[in-house]
């Protein structure tokens, strides 16, 4: 059972062979297995199963597998809130901090993949990385960074700015 392989298929149809233990970090995959097990208890446990992941592209799936594989050797320490630091390296182990040092699009895709595949520690890590991108940035910097056009009315802007002055 430990050596069983799961085939994870990306949106493009590319297939990745993953040890079952690694794949089972995803609750989506785990649930797929338990559903199948309920249907056919006599099934050969060494049989290779395939799980289609139509929402996850191949490059992102590759990163997800890299994360889950590393997690088997070094479990990520849970992220404590409130955060004691604003830098990733002080919040998680070095490997995990480096893992999310990727471009923004890849980071958002990883958030979406972790959410879709239901991998809690990966979701925690990637959301933390997004939060750290947001931390300390002005509204204008955030709009530039995420390419968002200003859509608040001057009154709304003024109101939000007043609150901001209180919080700063």
């Amino acid at each position, binding site marked *: 059972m430990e050596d069983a392989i799961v085939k994870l298929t990306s949106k493009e149809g590319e297939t990745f062979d993953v040890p079952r233990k690694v794949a089972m970090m995803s609750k989506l995959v785990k649930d797929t297995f338990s559903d199948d097990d309920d249907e056919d208890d006599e099934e050969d446990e060494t049989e290779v199963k395939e799980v289609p992941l139509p929402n996850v592209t191949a490059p992102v799936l590759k990163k997800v597998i890299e994360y889950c594989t590393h997690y088997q050797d070094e479990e990520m320490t849970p*992220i404590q*809130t409130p*955060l004691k630091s604003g830098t990733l390296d002080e919040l998680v182990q070095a490997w995990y901090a480096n893992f999310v040092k990727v471009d*923004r*699009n890849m980071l*958002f*895709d990883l*958030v*979406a993949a972790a*959410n879709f595949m239901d991998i809690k520690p990966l*979701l*925690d890590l990637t*959301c*933390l990385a*997004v*939060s*750290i991108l*947001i*931390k*300390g*940035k*002005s*509204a204008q910097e*955030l*709009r530039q960074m*995420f*390419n*968002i*056009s*200003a*859509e*608040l009315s001057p009154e*709304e*802007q003024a109101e*939000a*700015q007043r*609150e*901001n002055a*209180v*919080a*700063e």
Partner: protein
Amino acid sequence: MTPLLDTPDDLFSNHILKYLTVADLCRLRRVCRKFHDPERNVVLKEFMARDEGLTLSQQYASNSAFLSLFNCRERVTWFQRCSDFAWEMTRQALRHQSEYVLCRDPDCPYVNLHARVPRIANGLRNGKNYMFFAQFTCQENLLWEGFLQDYNPLSDLTSPIRELIAPGEPAADALDDRFVDFYDNFVVESDVRFHLDARNVTNLTKDLVRSDLHVTLISLIYSPGGSSPELRLHYSSQGIQLKYPEPPSLNHSISIDVLMDQDVMSHYRKHDAYATPFLLWSAENHLFTVSMLYNFEHVREADQRASGQAINLGFRDFLRAIDEQYLGYHHDEG
């Protein structure tokens, strides 16, 4: 849509926003309508969730000025500002103590204590709401922080001790002689400016009241219809000066811990003036009140002259009054 805005709302609510500070949340509100519109506002929902958490943990009284004066976003924001300011003052005091700076040094660079706290009348002090915020830390670890209400919003002169002495119990049985001495020598001779109800304080037990306990007391001052609220420092120091009774005695139901004196500068530079808070504990060893007394002999005398009467009775007189009220009992002279 950018990838950030594609992220589902529940991911913002359950994950991303949880890691952000209050200041970050306020800035994020200004980014786009998604974070601002009341219908779709994940940021407002996060403020509401944090406010709910604070209301629960802080046990705000229903008549609390903090609840009535501010909306949920402002409450979360001001709580955070108070916490940040208190931490800053705690660290300032620690640096101050480690540098052995003489507190009466006119060039002392640290924030002075705000000691001119007006007397309370109908919940206001000189027409303003003083919302006191206490922070208890130990070796820079937070034990508890939050707002404390005035023990009696009508008068600072109501002693909380009266409530702790059970009806029918002779006051002398409830109080240690040294406690009475303390009260006569320190409290009666000083100027008690406020008693704060501390029954909502959790995570601070009597065994934590040691030399490394650091107490910081600040206030958020709100002027109705006026300018933006202000933050003022009233006390920030480490250490305990006196404990009554010591060791704890089962025979006495009330105990008291007097914190270290802290010098008051600025307007009182020419006088020996200091702030001394004390913690009053109930028979069950629950923190009951935090009181602040000042020793400004010149100010007290001026107050007495202005009011034409003594502000505080002798404590033994006070005990007599309690006993007479409850028991019709009279202490022996002396």
